[in-house]
């Protein structure tokens, strides 16, 4: 059995892991107290040494991110809890089941970056996690862990809980900052708006994911060396994966990096219901290029191995599709998501994603033409030049190019299935079912 860190408390104490009482009874807030006695450099170095990678999707070194923070003051910390990528539900569990763990991570991050006002941005469709977090924040204020002079020190830290309004794009850190400023959640241009230099209110800002900061109490408690040693590879520590779709045991799993996809889907996930065959899976949230059993089942789940195979671990969401799944419909559904969530500011994403959705809808509904797959590929090419990985984007942010991943899967693995949609005038996998979907 692997070592559990961020989910240990909720596994050991399923009924009350979210309470302050339980949190304090299980070593809670001791690392925040300790951090107050450490210098900023010590903290940043410790986190750098741990190898902790951001858990929001980009997998960037958290310690390195901190060290970029421009020295101007004031500066801000924003916790990204706008988890919205299809297949992803890990932060919801961390927010709902162990909010104090995140708050302690926030306090440590704030101290390490001399931040005195932090925000937790929770997606609007997560009212229960927001309630749990707010209750925990209230408790932390009441006990002097937040507010003026935390833990009896002279360090002040304000923490504001902010609820989103229903927009996936706000998970993109600069869009999230705009949203927090009371603007439309449109991603900012990079350059010049790198948050570490020009973030919230144009001031230096750290944006970290919920899971990322939830790891911090553990890194301080066990030491960066032990944390890094949890895996035998460069992807240190544990990693939460959200497993969904056609598997026997969907759910969140805290795992060390390096097991294979076969182990994840068949051993941990219990395999495909009804003993059906695996057709494809999305390895890292809806944005990621798809994997198929013929090529990818025995690859180890690490950042580099996944990238070498042309995809990414992203937010750690694995969506499994069995042999009964229509690939055209699955692709349409993923693309529909990105078209719906496109902020609309840049042309290729606004127009291209909707166009792709229309083309796939037409094919699925039996109105497809022989030229449509090539057309979809060429439209995709206008969003992500050359359809390579990582994408050569014509867009401001990666949302548009994300919508290209399913087209790439159809082109690379399922051309015949698309062609049979066109030649048969409809979906060959659900010809017995009525046509039409929302």
């Amino acid at each position, binding site marked *: 059995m692997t070592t559990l860190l961020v989910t240990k408390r909720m596994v050991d104490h399923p009924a009350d892991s979210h309470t302050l009482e339980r949190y304090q009874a299980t070593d809670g807030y001791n690392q925040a107290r300790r951090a107050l006695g450490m210098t900023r450099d010590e903290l940043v170095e410790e986190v750098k040494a741990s190898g902790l990678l951001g858990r929001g999707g980009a997998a960037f070194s958290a310690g390195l991110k901190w060290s970029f923070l421009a020295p101007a003051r004031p500066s801000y910390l924003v916790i990204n809890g706008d988890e919205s990528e299809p297949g992803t539900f890990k932060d919801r569990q961390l927010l709902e089941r162990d909010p104090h763990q995140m708050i302690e991570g926030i306090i440590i991050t704030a101290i390490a970056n001399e931040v005195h006002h932090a925000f937790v941005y929770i997606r609007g469709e997560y009212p229960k996690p927001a309630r749990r977090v707010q209750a925990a924040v209230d408790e932390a204020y009441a006990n002097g862990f937040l507010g003026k002079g935390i833990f009896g020190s002279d360090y002040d830290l304000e923490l504001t809980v902010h609820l989103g309004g229903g927009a996936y794009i706000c998970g993109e850190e600069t869009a999230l900052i705009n949203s927090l400023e009371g603007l439309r959640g449109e991603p900012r241009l990079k*350059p010049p708006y790198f948050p570490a230099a020009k973030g919230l209110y144009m001031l230096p800002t750290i944006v970290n994911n919920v899971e990322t900061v939830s790891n911090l109490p553990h890194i301080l408690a066990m030491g960066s060396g032990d944390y890094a040693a949890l895996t035998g590879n460069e992807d240190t520590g544990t990693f939460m994966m959200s497993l969904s779709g056609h598997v026997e045991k969907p759910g969140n799993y805290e795992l060390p990096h390096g097991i294979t996809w076969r182990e994840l889907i068949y051993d941990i996930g219990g395999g495909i219901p009804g003993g059906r065959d695996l057709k494809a899976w999305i390895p890292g949230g809806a944005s990621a290029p798809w994997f198929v059993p013929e090529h990818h089942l025995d690859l180890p789940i690490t950042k580099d191995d996944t990238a070498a195979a042309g995809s990414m671990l992203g937010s750690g969401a694995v969506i499994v599709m069995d042999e009964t799944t229509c690939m055209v419909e699955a692709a349409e559904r993923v693309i529909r998501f990105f078209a719906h969530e496109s902020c*609309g*500011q840049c*042309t290729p994403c606004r127009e291209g994603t909707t166009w792709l959705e229309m083309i796939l809808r037409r094919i699925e509904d039996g109105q497809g033409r022989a030229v449509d797959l090539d057309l979809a590929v060429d*439209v995709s090419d*206008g*969003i992500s030049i050359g359809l390579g990985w990582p994408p*050569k984007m014509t867009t*401001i942010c990666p949302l548009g190019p994300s919508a290209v991943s399913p087209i790439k899967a159809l082109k690379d693995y399922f051309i015949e299935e698309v062609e049979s949609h066109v030649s048969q005038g409809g979906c060959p996998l659900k010809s017995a079912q009525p046509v039409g979907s929302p």
Partner: protein
Amino acid sequence: MPAQVSSAGRFAMSERTLVTITINGEDKQVPEGELLIKAAQDEGTYIPRFCWHERMNPVGMCRMCLVEVDTPRGPMMVTACTNNVTEGMVVDTESAEVKKAQEAILEFLLANHPLDCPVCDKGGECPLQDQAMAYGPGESRFVEIKRTYEKPIPISDLVLLDRERCILCARCTRFSDEISGDPLIEFKDRGNATEVNTFPDLPFSSYFSGNTVQICPVGALTAKPYRFRARPWDLKKVESSSLQDTAHPRMEIHASQNEILRYTGVDNDATNHGWLSDKARFGFEHLRSDNRVTEPLVRRGGELVAVPWAEAIDMVATRFQLVKDEDGGEAIGVIGGANGTNEDAYALSKFARVALGTNNVDATVGDALASHFLAATVDRACISDIDDADTILVWGPDLKEEHPTLYLRVRRAAQELGKTLVVIHPRATGLDDRASHKLNYRPGGGFQLLDELAEGEHADVLHALSANKVVVLVGMASHADGPDLAESVAAFIRQKAVKTLILPLNSRSNTYGALDMGLAPDLFPGRVNVDSAGAAALGEAWGGEPAGLPGRDSTEILAGLDSGEVRALLLVGSDPVRDMPIPSAASDGLAGAEYVVSIDMFVNDSNCNADVILPAAGFAEKEGTVTNVEGRVQKVNQIRPAPGQARADWAVVGDVALSMGVDLGLGSVEIINKEISEIVGAYEGVTFDLLEWEQREGAVIPVDDTRVISHIPIAAGGKASPEAAFTLHVARTMYDDGVRLRESPSLHPLAPGAVVRINPADAPSVGAQDGRPLRVVTSQGEGEFTVVLDEGTPAGVLFVPFNQPGGAHLGTDPVARVTPVKT
């Protein structure tokens, strides 16, 4: 010192350092930190774009300007509008991948864009159309149904929006937010459903709305006065400067078959950055009014009847000569000349001095700062100095209402350049949201506030004003503030700041040129005192001895007419009954006049009882030079003939002089311009040739000329603010009841009308209710006004916009009382 021919201001600016970049294999020297799209453009490489606009912050939204830039990780696609050039940057704007991206973007943009170019105003001058031809894929593969919207929606009184044509470049929304400060049009909804729109029932009622039409890269925004009226290729165009804005913003005049159809802004570093207020942009309708005077009219039996020019000229000359012979030139007054060209003004000035023999000339009508302050302030600022100041002080009119180009410039300096802005005014102004410091004072209490400042109160404001470089825009904020206050403010700041530059403000547009041409009782052309050696020399050049004592100003001329000391009056494009703060002074004077001649485009409230009305050519019907608020001379041009028998002012006075036996020697605008450039010292060398050039900056007339008089600052102190329940603030708004606006059907309805703005806290005590009438009474006038409850008007102040349709004049006395009106 020769006239300054550049956009540079009086504050020194530093040179930008250059870096070397490689564009498509060629090394280029470009300014460090410049946006790539601009640097490439200046070096001759045009990168296509829709959303980028040189005068607004880049947003990188349309993605049309994608280029490849070498990085350590290989070539990257970046938008040229959002990346700054750096030393050694290697850029490819023509690679296969760039072309692929350009084709893709155009196909995406055209996917939902209607193909209604034949009926679209923009067709023929449409960036989308042009770039689709140049960079597009040729055909669309989009077979789905295009987005449609309800056909066009009026987003303001002047602008219509066709949403299906919109390509969401955010130019209009950025303009309203970043430039004009009226964020009333915004993106709405998101993704593929994104559109530009206003809030329901809250239109884009901006004084600058027309700019969005001009910068729209498609035909989504169209102007009502122009919509469906012409095709771009049928238009005749000349460049000119607007006389409906004191900064004289540069613009193009577009006409078809001698009818002016639109004005468009021309980007000019020195003044307007391409922007025009709606008053300037749509201010051409009066020229085609059916109410133009097109024939010489003389009063016979109480009626105005048309007569031939020769007959009218003879009558006028004979009568003026008679008065001059009997009582001397001082029995004749000349009012006006501020709305024409410098050539008109010079001819009028010479006519008055040489033919009429009078110094009773005044281009202003009792509402202006002193002529020597307006014309001869030695430390006068250039408009571009606003950009380089540390602190900008605006103590005078609400710039948004009266000086729209200066408003945009100051707003930009505060918002985009981070300058400290101090606004001092009796009530809210359009700049308040960008002001670092704001002080209100009771109308008429300006000196009291100045005393407070002199005594060290308002420390934060004083600190801001004690900066290194301070630009002061001063004028009369209210009719209750006399002309002395502005001079005292200027004198006070000169003591505070290390370096102070002053921009004295007056609202009538070519007042500065008129004063420079000597249309003032105390000034001769070239800003020289009438009793100075310079004036004597000028008189000699004119072949006579017209110099002497200062004459009467407008108020004194009208008083003289009333008392009989002045017998005859020449009004030139002037309407003192409408424009003078105390209208009875004007109407009494006109009623008492023995003989009134008016040269005008229209019959107005002042010349309606004149003995002779001579038809005047209007703007764009004559060429010449004009001088703006900073002393910048620019050329205005003719695009159509004057209607009927109307003639330019200079030609009319020249003929009257000839008929009086005096040859002014001013037979054409070229000759007049040449004479000005030769004998009017400050205008030395400012010829048509100098101004007919590719750039638009014009020439700034020097002010540190030895012939310029220097004025003595007036010490602050003495005047207390009036004790009254209400003090009255009367000030101009952009739209009013002036005759040219009255003859502009698109603009006249935008005037606020006869309203009184009152703080909601004051309303109950006087029974004022929003939308109900209220009677306002002063010692000089009274009338009924519709109440507008307004948080922007401080308690104890009443704001009545000046010269409104149906609105009475209330004079300059700030003590007012109000009575409810029973209905």
